[in-house]
């Protein structure tokens, strides 16, 4: 289980290397509800960063503040080095998909993209290329109102790429995609990061995020729970699992774990020890000294979903990886 400490430390990425930098960002709605509460986060450039939180945790509100759609109550933020109070300075380099795809149903897919190109002053020659890359299997000369949710989502992603942005803000981009589409999206996001682009995406499909993200930001009720490399999170939640040759020796293994200052318990024929990486060698040595032979010693990592539920249930002591 991840340790619950509110560690203060230098940010992993100095602000000038961050694609997104939030400092105490807060949004209180007119009914008094705090959607985002003193959120301070650094999103590094050139990485795929997952933005995780339960429904109503403030993810979409955060995206909207970064896109200049919602005015923050307090705090500051910078996107690509520019303050969010001057969205025109950075939005031309940002692509986004926020919530459900917002398209004109009585226009065709191609026409929807042309509207945005004309408004942004972009070259319309990329439209065909993006439609092909998004693998929209609907006829793009038919009205968007006839598209499936998956095709509308693909079209929205294509629209987000029209300006060849440096940063992509994607809110539930996999919504409506079939497994093949999800796999393609995963590959697509990794390719973007390989090109040096930054992707900041939220999703409830934590299994998918685990495969694609370099780092995660975890929030609940608008407050930060965890921020840091995904590997660090997964490692921090890992446990040692030991199996002795003789089941009678499991009590000894538990005692060794407790004496070393770790939580240890026997369960289902195994000994589970909440110890950080590196304890394996010491455990092995102490077991040998105690004449206990271990037949299995592995590190069990929880998946992102389990970790998220655990951290959220722990009522959010801030952790930084």
């Amino acid at each position, binding site marked *: 289980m991840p340790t619950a400490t509110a560690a203060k430390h230098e940010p992993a990425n100095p602000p000038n290397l961050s694609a997104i930098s939030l400092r105490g960002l807060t949004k209180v709605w007119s009914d008094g509800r705090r959607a985002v509460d003193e959120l301070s986060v650094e999103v590094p450039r050139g990485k795929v960063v997952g933005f995780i939180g339960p429904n109503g945790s403030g993810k979409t509100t955060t995206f909207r503040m970064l896109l200049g759609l919602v005015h923050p109550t307090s705090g500051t933020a910078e996107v690509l080095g520019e303050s969010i109070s001057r969205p025109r300075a950075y939005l031309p380099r940002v692509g*986004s998909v926020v919530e459900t795809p917002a*398209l004109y149903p009585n226009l065709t897919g191609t026409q929807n993209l042309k509207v945005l190109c004309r408004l942004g002053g972009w070259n319309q020659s990329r439209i065909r290329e993006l439609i092909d890359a998004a693998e929209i299997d609907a006829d793009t000369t038919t009205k968007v109102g006839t598209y499936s949710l998956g095709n509308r989502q693909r079209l929205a992603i294509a*629209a987000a790429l029209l300006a060849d942005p440096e940063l992509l803000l994607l809110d539930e981009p996999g919504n409506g995609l079939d497994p093949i589409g999800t796999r393609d999206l995963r590959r697509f996001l990794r390719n973007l990061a390989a090109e040096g682009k930054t992707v900041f995406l939220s999703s409830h499909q934590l299994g998918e995020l685990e495969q694609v993200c370099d780092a995660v930001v975890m929030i609940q009720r608008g407050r930060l729970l965890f921020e840091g490399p995904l590997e660090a999170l997964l490692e921090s939640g890992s446990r040692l699992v030991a199996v002795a040759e003789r089941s009678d020796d499991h009590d000894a293994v538990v005692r060794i774990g407790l004496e070393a200052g770790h939580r240890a318990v026997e369960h289902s024929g195994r000994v589970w020890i909440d110890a950080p990486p590196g304890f394996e060698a010491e455990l092995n040595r102490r077991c040998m000294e105690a004449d206990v032979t271990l037949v299995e010693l592995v590190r069990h990592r929880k998946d992102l979903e389990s970790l998220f539920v655990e951290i959220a249930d722990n009522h959010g002591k801030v952790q930084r990886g």
Partner: protein
Amino acid sequence: MAVFAALSTLSRFRLAAFASRLASRRQLLGQGSVVDGAGQAAGGGAGVRGRGLAQAADLIDRLAEPAGWLTGFTASGRFIGFVALVVFAMSVGQEYRLGTLRSLLVVEPRRLQLLGGKLLALASLLAAAICVGMIAALLVAVLSAGSVPIPTRAWASSAPDAAAIFVNVWAAAVTWGVIGSLLAVAFRGNAPAIGVGLVYGLLGEPILATVVGQITVEGVALWLPSRALATLASGGSADMGFTTVLAVAVGYAVAATVGLAALVRRSDVTV
């Protein structure tokens, strides 16, 4: 709008034609001129007939004026205003209903620029529609003039009057359009904006005018938006001169524009 303008014009020519035939029959029967008939207040029935014929005679005189062919068109100024309110409210409101506003603002974050462009496009569309309406009115007037003994020579010199009518009708309609846009932004959708706008224009203001007229001075009702803008579209009236009604309409336009700009600039886009 072209169809309505044509029908409105046609109705006036038909009315004029009827009045003209009636007047001719009365003269043949030795019952005096149309105007004389109006002056005889011998009884309720003859008085009412007289007033009706006087109004018809007045209509015939107006149709003979240089901009006579636009008489029907200017009378439909209020309807054109309501059409403008609906069109503007629908266009602005649908951006909230579909959520496309957020897509547009991410591409063009200068909200006032985006709003200004949209209003300009709608105002241009309105101008084109009014032009088409006026052309339809002209065609119907030319075709209908033969059925009524109305001298149409003055129509050839109607360009300045037509231009003035175009500007008046367009200005009144654009003001209604901005009000419709303000309602659409305030309600974040087109349906409630159209509902509130039309209910006020068709029902609310007449009721309000009656109440206000009874509580205060009768003429105050002329200053209410629907009455004032209809008067502007008609180029002024005996109750309110053109300069005064123009000032009132400009006041409504400025207030609606400032309110709309403030709302657009400050509101959070949560659609």
